[in-house]
């Protein structure tokens, strides 16, 4: 019974596919999968926007939206209607075609990333051999849409925001890839289902998630930082910096195109959360062996929503970084730590099971963290800035 519920969507898709000729079967199942992705994640996006606003409000001791529908949960419907009926303004000097294409490119590439995410047991659209690489390739392609949006708007704030966004995305893509490589080194595969099934094991009731290893924990932190930055979320929201460059590269977008950008950014956040969950938090695996009866897709979405909650929490807490702080942090702290983590992962693999690998790897990582943290705080331009205007 539990297995049936676990696979209910797979069974359903195959059942629908059974009505078609055998040659079409696979195609129909794929189309159903695409429909699933294209409907579930935007629905999740709608839910998340209102949850985010309510959560942020609570963190600032406000109520958040509570007017439209029960407890404000129909707010996204109102927002959607508003953005659909708004005038679609294209600046006079804008490059029309690119201005039109940019949000589409963003949304399409982001959606493609979902194709390889395993949202449940046997529930991914394509089981690609190089799935992880595909995901990152699609992530890299979104940078282009950001640039197109910024440049075609013919607005200095837009182009500033776009250049900031691209510089930031490139800088943080490197540690992100490296932290994923640590996982790949242990699993020995770029296929995301393989990575999950490796973590879907238990010692007693405890899961074998990669976050519960020294190298995995470090890689997870690096991944989380890089993912926050990649998805342009606070505290790394310089490309959008409402207070300085008025929403950056989508300043000149209004109406539905703006909504597409908004959707694209949220979907990128979902995709990165899903990837983080898959790589480090066991994907669709249950946290304890005795909870395995709950369907795998519930666990996946619960974990994704949990990481979204952390994103919101971070956004509600931290102030925006300065551009130089952002770059220094990426290249002088996160990247060395990611490289070191790769070495530590190698050591972990080399030492083999036993208590030694735990002690050695933890010690190396903690020592590096402490030393780098200390030196980082001592270095001029990087540590806390002492303002002297009070004198």
């Amino acid at each position, binding site marked *: 019974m539990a297995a049936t519920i676990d696979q209910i969507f797979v069974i359903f898709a195959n059942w629908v596919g059974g009505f078609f000729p055998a040659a079409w079967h696979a195609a129909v199942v794929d189309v159903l999968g695409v429909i699933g992705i294209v409907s579930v994640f935007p629905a999740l996006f709608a839910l998340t926007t209102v949850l985010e606003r309510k959560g942020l409000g609570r963190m600032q001791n406000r109520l958040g939206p509570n007017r439209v529908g029960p407890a404000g949960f129909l707010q996204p419907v109102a927002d959607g209607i508003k953005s659909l009926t708004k005038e679609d303004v294209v600046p006079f000097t804008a490059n029309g075609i690119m201005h039109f294409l940019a949000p589409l490119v963003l949304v399409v590439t982001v959606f493609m990333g979902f194709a390889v995410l395993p949202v449940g047991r046997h529930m991914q659209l394509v089981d690609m051999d190089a799935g992880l690489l595909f995901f990152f390739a699609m992530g*890299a392609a979104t940078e282009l849409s950001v640039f197109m949006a910024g440049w075609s708007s013919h607005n200095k704030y837009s182009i500033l925001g776009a250049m900031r966004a691209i510089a930031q995305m490139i800088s943080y893509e490197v540690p992100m890839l490296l932290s994923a490589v640590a996982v790949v080194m242990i699993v020995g595969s770029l296929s995301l289902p393989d990575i999950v099934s490796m973590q879907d094991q238990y010692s007693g009731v405890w899961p074998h998630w990669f976050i519960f290893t020294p190298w995995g924990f470090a890689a997870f932190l690096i991944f989380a930082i890089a993912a926050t930055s990649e998805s342009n979320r606070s505290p790394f929201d310089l490309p959008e910096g409402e207070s300085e460059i008025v929403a950056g590269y989508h300043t000149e977008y209004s109406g539905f195109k703006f909504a597409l950008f908004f959707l694209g950014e949220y979907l990128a956040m979902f995709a990165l959360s899903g990837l983080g969950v898959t790589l480090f938090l066991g994907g669709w695996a249950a946290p304890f062996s005795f909870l395995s009866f709950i369907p795998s897709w519930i666990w996946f979405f619960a974990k994704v929503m949990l990481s979204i909650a952390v994103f919101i929490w971070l956004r509600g807490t931290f102030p925006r970084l300065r551009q130089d702080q952002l770059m220094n942090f990426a290249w002088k702290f996160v990247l060395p730590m990611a490289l070191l983590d790769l070495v530590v992962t190698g050591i972990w693999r080399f030492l083999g099971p036993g208590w030694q690998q735990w002690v050695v790897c933890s010690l190396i990582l903690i020592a590096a963290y402490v030393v780098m943290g200390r030196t980082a705080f001592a270095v001029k331009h990087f540590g806390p800035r002492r303002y002297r205007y009070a004198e």
Partner: protein
Amino acid sequence: MSGVFYFISAVTVAGALAAVLLRNTIHCALALAVAFAGLALLFLSLDAQFVGFVQILVYIGAVVILVVFAILLTRDSEAPNQGVYSRTWLAGLVITAAVFAFLAWAVLASLPGLPRRAVAPAASVQDIGNALMTRYVLPLEIIAVLLTAATIGAVIVAMHEKARSK
């Protein structure tokens, strides 16, 4: 050959043509991205999944972005008043035509006596990894050194004079 191949090839060639013909340099860079995407699809149609994705990741994600950055940093997108083509464009065109004619003749005339292999050769990521770590480990190391050197070199070359002399 299937229609898919012709379509992808047409897109790729059109992108490449646009990349070298358009007046606005930014448009050239974006057309280049189209050409690279088409090439990645061609790689995929050749069953080289890994290389196709690497192509997207490296070329669209990095090289095109680098080009775009360089264009914006050098104000290259403002079209020059004396035309976008070099003084020696005619010679260049003649050389190009000659090269293409020679290449096409060579390709068509050689008629490679190779089998039409319908089944894709196996090249999983694991195989590629194994090959990189065994047979091609020396080139890999050399590439690593080259990339490090290139990174440092690019930073030093592009660094401000003032910062360097300090």
